[in-house]
């Protein structure tokens, strides 16, 4: 084996053992949503959650995975069966992302709380 190979292999070995820590991640507190007394707007506060940075729309778009959360169709699509106004916490649009069967994307705590508050206010198309 070449000298340089041994040298680099030992660097690799060293790097793998020098950083050992024992930390716990602190869970986030559920944020309180204060919209200044105004109703939460679907078009300006909820719809952007789905499309900013293609967070949801990279898969949930027209012609692809249901529900279609692209700007034009989002409200109509989620009203089909993803909202439960009787028990807001059980709304699929709220509970499914981030669950074990949809582990690849979820909401941040603020986004989830905003969405829940909007559903509780009647899930209006505002």
């Amino acid at each position: 084996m070449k000298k340089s190979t041994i040298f680099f292999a030992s660097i690799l070995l060293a790097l793998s053992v020098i950083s050992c820590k024992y930390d716990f991640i602190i869970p986030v507190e559920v944020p309180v949503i204060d919209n200044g007394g105004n109703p939460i707007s679907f078009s300006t506060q909820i719809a952007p959650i789905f499309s900013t940075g293609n967070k949801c729309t990279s898969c949930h778009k027209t012609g692809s995975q249901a529900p279609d959360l692209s700007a034009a169709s989002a409200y109509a699509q989620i009203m089909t069966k993803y909202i439960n106004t009787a028990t807001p916490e059980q709304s699929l649009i709220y509970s499914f992302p981030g669950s074990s069967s949809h582990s690849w994307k979820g909401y941040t705590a603020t986004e989830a709380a905003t969405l829940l508050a909007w559903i509780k206010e009647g899930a209006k198309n505002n």
Partner: protein
Amino acid sequence: MKMTLKSLLGSAVVIMTSVVLFSFVAPQDQKAGAAWVVPANYKSMANPQKGKGDPENVGKMLYAKHCKSCHGGTGLGDGAKASSMKTKINSLKEGKFQAQSDGEVYYESFIGRDEMPNFEKKIPAVEDRWALVNYIRTLK
């Protein structure tokens, strides 16, 4: 517990690195290939394009596509895949190789043996094969 985890991780890294390095056969471990046994009909086969060279660069393109990966860009037998072969690949520039008849070169290139693949299906056009033989002659 702490010590065991560290040494386990360390040994895993060392093992993985050595597996990667050992996949290459050292030059001294490669076997020299036995002499080729070329059937009489190939030995005496005439090159229908003798002296015509490789005017459309067909041979050159075919060499780059099919041969370069083992035989190297200039035919020295130093291509990327050469070191993972069990048999040593001799240089195509060698007097011994070039002294063979065109028919023998044709047999060795397209019929092949062992680690040298058969190229009859990959280069089905006879005309293209002789253009490649002509190109191999220029590697001298």
